[in-house]
């Protein structure tokens, strides 16, 4: 189901100089502006990651997670994955395993219910993942 259970894939855990990245597939059937992302929550091995201990990357550009909602002119093309980079002191190494739990809320910004109110798709993904080689 393109809109619900494809957020995380087996290859979603990627080493990153700042820690590790979790690659997300867009939980909708079309591309959306990054401003559609109203919330991302990440929980790793049972511990909630603070919003200021992560950032987002799309095609080499970095954004604070809380600033995604300002990115109305950046398209999250549906064949691209949004990388949520979780900061930690020691970068993850390929082969390490983590229990990753992600919840994302998207404003479906062309399906208006009332002025300023849009259909929301809140999707949850949970997987035990093995870090692959860095891209």
């Amino acid at each position, binding site marked *: *189901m*393109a*809109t619900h*259970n*494809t957020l995380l894939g087996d290859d979603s855990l990627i080493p990153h100089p700042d820690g590790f990245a979790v690659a997300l*597939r*867009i939980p909708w*059937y*079309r*591309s*959306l*502006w990054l*401003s*559609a992302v*109203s919330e991302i929550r990440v929980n790793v091995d049972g511990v909630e990651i603070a919003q200021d201990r992560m950032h987002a990357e799309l095609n080499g550009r970095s954004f604070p997670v809380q600033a995604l*909602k*300002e990115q*109305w002119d950046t*398209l999250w*093309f*549906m*064949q691209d994955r949004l990388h949520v980079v979780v900061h930690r002191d020691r970068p993850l190494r390929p082969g390490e395993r983590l229990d990753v739990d992600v919840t994302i809320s998207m*404003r479906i*910004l*062309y399906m*208006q219910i009332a*002025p*300023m109110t*849009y259909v929301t798709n809140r999707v949850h993904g949970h997987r035990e993942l093995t870090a692959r080689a860095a891209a």
Partner: protein
Amino acid sequence: MTPTGTPSRTPAGTAEAAPAVPGSAIKLGTTLYSLTAEWAFGLYDLDGLLAAVQRAGIGPGIELVASQTLRTYPHVSDDFVRNWHDTLDRYGFVAGSFAANLDMGRRHDRDMTPDEEYEFTEALFRSAHALGFPLVRVQSAKEELIRRLLPLAEELDIVMGYEIHAPYGPNSPEIVRIRELYDEIGSPRLGFVADFSSTMHGMSPTLLRTLRRMGLDDAALDELQRVWATDGSIGERAGAFAGYLGRRGIDVASLGPFARLAFNMQGHVDPREWSDIMPRIVHVHAKFYDIDEHGEEPSIDYRTIVREFVRGGYSGFFSSEWEGHAFADLGEADPLDLVARQHELIRRSIREALADA
């Protein structure tokens, strides 16, 4: 129907779309939306996707959803345009419909102004024109926007098709208002895209199977289908079913929204109502979820629907729209094979309708 008085145009692709069956002017095609899951997972680039459509023999009309296909959405690059025309020519495809959305909530802190709505839609119309599409599917029919777009549609030789989709039908109050606006403006450039999600005789077994997998038992599925067949709004029906789930102690939080999706995606209007607006239907989304072992769509009565379109003299595309990917995972079904079998069903239904006439 081709609006009268439309100047000749050069559609993308040099081929003319041949009728599906001699004796009726209905043409066949596919919307790339049918391959949403394969596209999302990057199994194909655009050339590969069109090559797969060619191999499956499910052209010649091609429809795309701009926000799926265009990396530079809502714009198109010169290279993209050149490649598109080359590919359509190579395969003998014809550009059928360019499906647009209006991203009015693009900014999180305010809705688009009327000027921004026009500019955004203008960009989409210009992209559609560059790609050789004679028709743009629109989803917003705000009166002011329609009136502003008309001169642009004239300039670009484009027909606007407002989509009629579940839960609405041709005679729903929301659609009757648009029909009245069309009558008042009186332009052949204003029409409707008929999506067969509106006229289903039952909920799709594909959806019911998924809900069963998610935890609904027979009693709950029976209740869901009973509520679905009533005439309340989406909100009323979703509320009624959520109440039932609550009384049974079933997880409303996860199953309620999914069931709501069903009310939104599948409607039960009488298919004969399409005849009431037939001259205004400029394009068809031949929606389907499955083709069974008898070659039939289990929840959409193609024979009855096609008979209405044959009798009404419809001459546009039936653009096959497989939406099973909303409920099935990648690899559970082969959309290319399903569309090929659905094209057979449509051809068979056209032949039957012609024989009855």
